[in-house]
């Protein structure tokens, strides 16, 4: 059942890092908090966690012109079209929803953690207690009801908006025009297009933990596109050859009489 694809556009040039999204996400998804320490940054928790599906990353940056910038990036699942996590998920817990987003059905998850290392964006997180994987599902439940995801609803400045794919791509490039070229659209050019896109004010390489050219890891492609089918093909082929051998050459009989009785 293919429906309209949705894209969440994160305009970092409008983000004030108020972190309403970070909390709204926890509120809606009923995720607890951890006791943290201040490690010399506003950013906290220090990274995504099983209970923190979206995190505002704070980064101090001096650009080429020597201008100081305080960069805020809302990190979280990018909802790839060519999703490595779905590719490696053995249970079907991770799946493409009708909106093109990557849904997660915790009931099916067996906690194998394959998705964690496969993800080019380092998004899924594992919970030791429940032995399940957690990540943003773009509020699938809300999307089904025609509602904005919790983060988008809570965003005060319109830095997070959600809409139909084409409209949001147009919007992203329209915003670039408004920014007079001082921005970069990130997300439409790789992994088949992500369902979360950024408008970045700086080059992607500047941002912490943001891959410049994300893709499904070569190891995953080898594994899933080559080794996996060849396991069956290989075993089948060998079995076939053995059968052929048996038919053509016959079994390797022992020469009973060579020695003879004593």
């Amino acid at each position, binding site marked *: 059942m293919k429906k309209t694809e949705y894209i969440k556009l994160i305009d970092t040039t409008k983000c*004030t890092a108020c972190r309403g999204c970070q909390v709204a996400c926890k*509120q809606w998804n009923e995720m607890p908090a951890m006791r943290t320490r*201040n490690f*010399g*940054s506003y950013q906290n928790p220090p990274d995504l966690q099983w209970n923190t599906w979206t995190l505002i990353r704070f980064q*101090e940056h001096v650009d080429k012109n020597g201008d100081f910038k305080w960069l*805020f990036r809302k990190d979280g699942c990018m909802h790839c079209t060519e999703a490595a996590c779905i590719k490696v998920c053995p249970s079907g817990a991770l799946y493409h929803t009708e909106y093109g987003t990557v849904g997660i059905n915790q009931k099916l998850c067996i906690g194998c953690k394959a998705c964690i290392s496969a993800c080019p964006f380092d998004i899924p997180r594992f919970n030791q207690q429940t032995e399940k994987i957690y990540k943003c599902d773009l509020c699938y439940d809300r999307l089904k009801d025609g509602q904005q995801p919790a983060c988008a609803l809570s965003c005060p400045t319109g830095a997070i908006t959600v809409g139909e794919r084409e409209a949001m791509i147009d919007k992203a490039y329209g915003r670039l025009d408004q920014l007079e070229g001082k921005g970069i659209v990130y997300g439409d050019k790789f992994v088949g297009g992500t369902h979360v896109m950024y408008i970045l004010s700086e080059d992607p390489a500047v941002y912490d933990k943001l891959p410049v050219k994300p893709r499904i890891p070569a190891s995953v492609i080898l594994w899933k596109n080559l080794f996996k089918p060849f396991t069956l093909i290989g075993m089948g082929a060998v079995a076939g050859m053995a059968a052929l051998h048996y038919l053509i050459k016959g079994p390797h009989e022992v020469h009973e009489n060579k020695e003879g009785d004593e």
Partner: protein
Amino acid sequence: MTNHYIDLKNSDVILIMGSNAAEHHPLAFKWIMRAKDAGARVIHVDPRYTRTSARCDYHVPIRSGTDIAFLGGMIKYIIEGNKFFRDYVVNYTNASFLVNPDFSFEDGLFSGYDAQKRSYNKETWTFQKDGNGIPLKDPTLKHPQCVFQLLKQHYSRYTLDKVSSITGVSKENLLKVYEEYSATGAPDKAGTECYALGWTHHTSGSQNIRTMSIIQLLLGNMGIAGGGINALRGEPNVQGSTDHCILYGNLPGYLKMPTASLATLEQYLTKNTPTSSDPQSANYYQNYPNFFVSWLKSLYGDAATPENGFGYSWLPKLEDGKHYSQLHLFDRMYEGAIKGLFAYGTDPAVSSPNTKKTRKALEKLDWLVCANIFDNETASFWFGPGVDPKQVKTEVFLLPAAATMEKEGSQSNSGRWVQWKYKAVTPPGDAISCGDIQIRMMDAIKALYAKEGGPSAEPILNLKWNYKDIDGNMDVLKVSKQINGYWEADVEVTENGAKKIMNKGGLVPTFGMLRSDGTTSCGNWIMSGSFGADGENKMARRGKEDPTGLGLYPNWSFVWPVNRRIIYNRASCDINGKPYNPKRNILEWKDGKWVGDVPDGPWPPMADKEKGKYPFIMKVDGVASLFGPAMAEGPFPEHYEPLEGPLAKNPLSSQLINPTIELFSSDLDQVANASDKFPYVCTTYSCTEHWCSGALTRWQAWLLEMQPELYVEISEELARELEIANGSKVKVSSARGEAACIAMVTKRFKPFTIEGRTVHQVGLPFNYGWLYPEDGSDSTNFLTPTVGDANTFCPEYKAFMVNVTRR
């Protein structure tokens, strides 16, 4: 706020100074970003680079406590560069008024200063008047004694070099801001200013705001869409609690608290009712007696009669010239003069300045009653750090209160929007609302006085206190209707030329109908009109119509006064009532009536010499004050250094600090100005994730997770000097105390060059306390001094001196 949050979107230039809007008013920033998207320029002037700076067009760093110097330079730039809106300045301000020739200003002091009392005799701060008592004016603004010329002269000293040297702002940056902001002096441009505690938390707090008000008047930015001077206030109902005046100096609706010298109602009303001889001045406060007597009727009900002066004598009277603010309160408590304290929804053991003094003061109480939704450092002071419970005599009550969604009532935002909220659930356990607590406590006190009598039992016994429903709980509507006001007798009124009988017990539809003869009662005149005569609760309205397209939403909630969304809105039109900016038309005089927002009074615009009125109807002269004699420090704001600063001498005069601030002198009131021991300027603030003392937010795991403990932000330059690593443990100390915290070494702080030398500034949030989280450090206010603004007594949290060391 003169305007309101949504109106920020209508601005062309937004100056954010004294505020960190993106962090502390994130939804205000929604509308600021809306303006920016529409092409507005957004400028942030602040000691530190914050999340606000990150989204502004640019950030200009300024040394804490030097805003008047910065803005004074802008006044000079506007006047000398002829950037002001002449029409507006001449007609709508007192720029043309001629000042008393004996008025003078010399070396930082205005005429009439009394060094002993640290205050002014203001008798020379007046206008020259003609035979009819109307102020003399020179509309050409050339008369050497006119306000405009005096203003020009006063700020001529605020040269770029001087201002740059005081503030630490480069001359390029000064000019950039001055030029960009003063461009809003064009009739079709709107400039607005957003300030918050960054301006009020200074010994020069009120004058910071007044300096900006002068700029806004010079540029014609008051009363217009996208203009005004907008206090982004910090607490959910601080507007409402201020309107209802849980304050020593005012009674609900900003009526004046009586003082000992005003023995009778007549004396009181004469003193507080302004008179104007100018027929074109509406002088709306001439209605003061109506408001005051109606309030007395709400206080004492039927016991307030014309014969007993409506119970005026029962009211407590302040001592003339004496103040009773939070600073004074804790000073007196520390002296042992205060025995009992009610502290509702507040945590002074963390939030009051000079924490050591505050906490010692609490130990001297006989009893303390706190009402909160969470425990806090004030209620639990008796087992705080360094306190031996066995030595503390105080009897403490910690009453469990209802949270906001557990009770029905109204709340006023900073834009004066009074919005209604509903009770979603009953409070947990035994918790009840603060209103219920107050009602039941007062019932118990009344019962005790009824039984035992006592000195001055009348005001307690006569207090009108019938606000319960049949179940004995607070009946919110009964209260809010009393605030709105009732007819206390059948009264005949004239409405739109027709005579009409208003029946006793009916709701008063507007404060214009309040009376001073005891036939109306009104708990707070500015809220009169929050109910329709038909009983409609206007605060609960949810109409989404926006006829002007400027975001006024006249049918959403109720806005005081009389649903006026932008106050002084008549000033958005020229003297004929035509809008200065037709593109942002909030009000227009058309076919003999005002169309648009609710106007500041129904009268025609001032060009009509017969019936027309000046636009600033609450001012006695009908115009806005460039010359403001009401201020304690003088009619023109002047730069003084903070109580504690890096300089031994004020570069502008020999008056180092504000000459009118009150200096406290207990053994715990230590001050260290320009001291080697405390070489760094320090400022304090909140963060998005916590709120005020953190007494609500520290208990919330989601918020605590994001900002878990106290930190001090220091520049990379200072960190290098002190060999402090990012994330390491440090100690910040002042003459009064110290705070242990984590160092956040950042590029967002930069050293300043002040008077030719490098001055470092650091900053800490004030959201932490010892009670919870256990390892999140204690109050930042151990560092801050007990000193406040001379007019408002807002403590100087934003500029004082500290040292930073590793620990």
